[in-house]
C-alpha cells in the first residue's frame, strides 16, 4: 500500500470515528446550553444504555430492533431521574458543585453496572454489518463506516431540529438567559429536562454503536473524555460546531496513531484541548455574545 493511500485510509477511519464523537458531544452541549451544567456522567450514560441494549436484546431475547427501542426508553427514563433527583436541586449552585454531582452520578452508574453485569467483556448482537465499504481503492471497516453514517444522520437531524423547531428556540433562549426565557413564558425546567432527554438519546445511540464497534465493557464510557476535546474545539455554545470538531479530533487521533507510537494517540485529544483553550478559548465556532446596549 502506498503511503498516500495509507494516509487516506487512516484519515477516513479517523473522520468516521469522529462522527460518533460528534453524537456524544451533542448530548454534552445541549445540557450545557440548557443549564450551564457540564455533564461528566455522559460516558457512563452511554455505557449504561449499551448494557440496557444487551439486557433487552440478549437477556430478554427481544432481538436488536426491540432492544434499541427498549434501551432508548430506559435511557430516557434514567436521564430524567438523574435530572430530577440530582441536578434540579443544584440549580443556581456554583458550576463546580454541579460538575462534582455529575461525576458522582457517573461513579454510581459505573458501580451499579459492575455489580449487575460484572467487569468482563460482553458480546452484543451485531447490528452493524461487518462487510467493508470500499471508497475507490480505500478500504473502510464495515462497522466503522455504518456507525459513522448512523451517527452523522442523527447529528444532522438533531442540529436541524434544534435550529428550526420551536423547542430549539426555547433551548437557545434558555441558553442566552434563563430569566428572559422565563419572561417569554418558557418553562425553563422543562427545557432542561428536554435537554437531558436529547442527551439520553445521543448517549444511547452512541453507546450501542461503540459497543458494536469495540466491545461492551464498563469502560466503554471512557471515550466520552476524548469528547471533551471535541466540545472545547467546537465551542461550548455551538451546536453545529460539534460535527466539524468531531471530524477534526477523530482525524487527528487516527493520524497521530499512524505516525507516532500508540501512547500518543491516547493523549492527542487532551493536548489539543489544552492548545485550543490557550489559543482560542471560545473554540472554532463559539462566538462572543452579540450585544448592544
Amino acid at each position, binding site marked *: 500500500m502506498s503511503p498516500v493511500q495509507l494516509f487516506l485510509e487512516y484519515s477516513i477511519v479517523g473522520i468516521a470515528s469522529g462522527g460518533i464523537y460528534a453524537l456524544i458531544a451533542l448530548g454534552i452541549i445541549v445540557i450545557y446550553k440548557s443549564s450551564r451544567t457540564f455533564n461528566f456522567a455522559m460516558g457512563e450514560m452511554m455505557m449504561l444504555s449499551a448494557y440496557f441494549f444487551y439486557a433487552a436484546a440478549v437477556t430478554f431475547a427481544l432481538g436488536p430492533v426491540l432492544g434499541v427501542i427498549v434501551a432508548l426508553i430506559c435511557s430516557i427514563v434514567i436521564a430524567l431521574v438523574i435530572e430530577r433527583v440530582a441536578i434540579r436541586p443544584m440549580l443556581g449552585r456554583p458550576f463546580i458543585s454541579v460538575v462534582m454531582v455529575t461525576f458522582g452520578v457517573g461513579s454510581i452508574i459505573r458501580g451499579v453496572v459492575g455489580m449487575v453485569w460484572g467487569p468482563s467483556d460482553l458480546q452484543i448482537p451485531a447490528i452493524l454489518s461487518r462487510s467493508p465499504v470500499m471508497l475507490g481503492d480505500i478500504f473502510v471497516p464495515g462497522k466503522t463506516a455504518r456507525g459513522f453514517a448512523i451517527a452523522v444522520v442523527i447529528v444532522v437531524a438533531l442540529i436541524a431540529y434544534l435550529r428550526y423547531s420551536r423547542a430549539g428556540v426555547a433551548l437557545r433562549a434558555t441558553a442566552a438567559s434563563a430569566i428572559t426565557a422565563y419572561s417569554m*413564558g418558557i418553562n425553563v425546567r422543562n427545557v432542561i429536562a428536554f435537554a437531558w432527554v436529547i442527551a439520553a438519546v445521543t448517549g444511547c445511540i452512541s453507546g450501542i454503536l461503540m459497543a458494536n464497534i469495540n466491545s461492551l465493557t464498563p469502560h466503554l464510557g471512557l471515550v466520552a473524555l476524548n469528547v471533551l476535546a471535541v466540545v472545547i474545539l467546537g465551542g461550548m455554545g455551538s451546536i453545529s460546531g460539534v460535527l466539524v470538531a468531531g471530524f477534526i479530533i477523530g482525524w487527528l487521533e487516527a493520524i497521530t496513531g499512524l505516525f507516532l507510537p500508540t501512547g500518543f494517540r491516547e493523549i492527542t485529544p487532551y493536548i489539543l484541548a489544552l492548545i485550543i483553550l490557550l489559543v482560542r478559548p471560545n473554540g472554532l465556532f463559539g462566538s462572543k*455574545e452579540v450585544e*448592544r446596549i
Partner: protein
Amino acid sequence: MLEIRNLEVVYQGVIQALADLSVTIPEGAIVALLGANGAGKTTTLKAISGFLPLEGGRITSGSIRIGGQDIAKLAPHQIVRRGVFHVREGRHIFGDMTVEENLIAATFAQRHKRSRKDAFDEVYSYFPILSTRRNQQAGYLSGGEQQMLAIGRALVADPSMILLDEPSLGLAPLIVNEIFEIISRINREKKVSILLVEQNAVIALKYASYGYVVESGRTVLEGTSQELNSNEDIQKFYLGVDAAEAA
C-alpha cells in the same frame, strides 16, 4: 385589574427593597411609577412577574392580585401565561437569534392559541421596521429597534397587561417619542393596560393617566397625571422645573 397591597420584599433575607407598596392598575389604563434610582420600581415589576425567587428575593408580606386571584406564589412562566408580560429594563432581546426567532420565543407566553402569522403580522403592523429586519440577527439592531422588538415580543403573547421598564433608556428623543406613540396606540387599540417605570418623568406623565411616587420602597404620593404634573415637589424633583420659575 392588578392590585398590589402593602407589599414588602426582602433580598437575601436581609436587604429590604420594598417596605409598604400599594399600587392599583385598572383595566386598560397606563399607570406610571416614578422615583429615584433604587427606590424599588424595578423590584415592584419583578415581584409582579415572579422573578424575585430567581434573584434571591422574596415577598415577605402583602399581596399581588390579578382580577382577585393571588399570583405571588406562581412561577414566572405561569404569570406571563396569565397575561402579564414584563418587558425588562435593557430590553434583553436574544442577540444571537434572528428577529423572527425572538418573536417565536414569545409564543410560549400566549394564553390563547393564535396562528404565528396573525401574531407576527400584528407586531409588524405596529413596528414595520421589524418586518424588513425579520431574518437579521437581533444583536445588530439599533437600540430603538431592539426596544421595538422587546415590545413586539410582548404583543405576540397578546397580554392583558405589559410591565414596561425604562423603555426610553439610552434612546434618542425622536425614537423615544415614536416608541411612546406606538405604546399609546397599543394601549388604546388592544385595551392593554400598562405599568410604566420611567426615569423620564415628563414623558411618563404625558402618556400615563395616573402615577405613583415610590421612595425607599414605599408609595408616598399618588394622583392623576395632571395632579402630579402640578405638584411642586414633583416639579422640583422629577420634572426638573424650578418652582420659582414655574410660578
